[in-house]
């Protein structure tokens, strides 16, 4: 089982991208599971995703603490054992730190035939000023971006070129190593690039 994370702050377009990726990966013959670490969204996402025959698990919680981390660890273990997906896409809650999820997976990997795939962090270019402007939010958003392998500059179809370029410069400064991809869930721009990255890492793993 390979673990892929699609992370990002509230409203960054995670769910839409996940649905697209699921179709892509399932279409290619992979068995895909989606783990939604957010009680608030699971009732909606659960129904939507179950249309695609996925195993959706609510690991819930709502607090960043050991019990939630433990529950996630246990749920991944149960998924690997009972459902045996090729790929599990984790959508952490909007305030989760991707590295925490990666650490959980790393502790599980040796015993569960689990491999760590790519971490994609979405950044809503139409709200760049807000996301990086407020003290409270900037810290969290920056932490999320720093943990990314790929930063997807999302909503490029609605943001101005100036905002997109400002976003690119800002995220690059926070995480110079990450690959930066322009993404529009609406027009499909960038989706194939991310799907390919997920696939490649999936194949490599």
């Amino acid at each position, binding site marked *: 089982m390979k673990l892929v994370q699609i992370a990002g702050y509230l409203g960054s377009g995670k769910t839409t991208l996940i649905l697209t990726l699921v179709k892509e990966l399932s279409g290619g013959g992979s068995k895909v599971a989606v783990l939604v670490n957010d009680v608030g969204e699971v009732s909606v996402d659960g129904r939507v995703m179950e249309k695609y025959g996925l195993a959706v698990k*609510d690991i819930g919680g709502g*607090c960043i603490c050991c019990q939630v981390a433990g529950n996630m660890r246990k749920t991944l273990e149960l998924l690997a054992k009972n459902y045996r997906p090729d790929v599990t896409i984790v959508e952490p809650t909007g305030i989760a730190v991707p590295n925490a999820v990666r650490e959980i997976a790393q502790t599980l990997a040796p015993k569960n035939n689990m491999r760590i795939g790519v971490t994609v962090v979405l950044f809503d270019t139409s709200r760049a000023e807000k996301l990086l402007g407020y003290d409270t939010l900037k810290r969290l958003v920056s932490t999320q971006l720093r943990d990314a392998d790929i930063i997807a500059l999302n909503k490029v179809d609605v943001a101005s070129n100036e905002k997109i370029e400002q976003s690119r410069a800002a995220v690059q400064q926070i995480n110079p190593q990450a690959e930066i991809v322009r993404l529009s869930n609406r027009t499909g721009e960038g989706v194939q690039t991310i799907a390919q990255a997920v696939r490649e890492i999936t194949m490599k793993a």
Partner: protein
Amino acid sequence: MATQTTLTPRERVMKFLKGEEVGRPPIFSGMGNVIVPVLEKYGINFAKVHRDPALMAKAAAGMYREFGFECAVVPFDLGVEAEAMGAKMNFYDDVDGLLYPTVKEKSVKDVEDVKIPADLAQAGRIPVVTGAVRKIREELGNDVAIGTYILGPFTLAGQVKELDELLEDSFVEPEKTNVLLEKISDLIIGVFKIYHEAGADYFTLREMGATSDVISPKSFKSLIKPHLIRIISKMPRPAILHICGDTNSIVEDMAECGADAISVDQKNCITDTREKLGTEVIILGNVDPIKVLHQGASKDVGPAVLESLNGGASAVWPGCDFWPEVPHQNMEEYVKALKS
């Protein structure tokens, strides 16, 4: 007056938390203290233990009976107060594996939705916890210190209100969040009073959501700290303040909140914390409950305990709840290291 050698476990814990000399630090915690080796021995189902005072008491007391902990701590999960505020829990009765209960339906959209139940002592599972406290006292008498905990206002707010919305409000409309935290703080103070009246000895305020991983030190100081100060000033004593995750930049603020002790997890550099806070502050921590106690080799447990003590911990606490599936041998090594 009792001498060091004749201290009961309860006396040791209570004197220690008052800053008195007790020789060896007590073997205790103020957080989730339930483990599978005890549950299995007593035939207790994990999903049910959170809803039955007798089972909860038995599992908590088992840490004293089976492993020599000098405390019994209830509850075990993080949903008691949220449930009392109307949130719906998932206890995972049908899952073939151990999962902590989680909130499946939040109850607060706006500040107006926060209501302190008229009969708080009977709200949600609060009577389960108070029932367990009384049962433990009945069974173990005054030998063992009984600990209870409640989530801090920001963490509890995240249990009853969507986290993303909470965070967004925290910077867009901080005053709105402030009012929310004020109301939740009143509830927390009320529940602590109820636990105290039931017979609990020491009290931990667990504000794990306020870690610097998520909340900047500046926001912690302006948004959260004032509420912690107010709660702690009204809490029964001794009171302990715990925050998970990165606390390196806020330990001074934590100490200024006025608790009798502070507790930090493995992300905290306890040596630096000791240096910052001086010798008088009681610091509890910070053995990694997952990497060391749950997944580590038993030979590494003792050194980890010593590392915390040598680093400056006044007594060793796990950095957070024990993950219940801690191996029996690791727990034995943990207690052995603390006793030596």
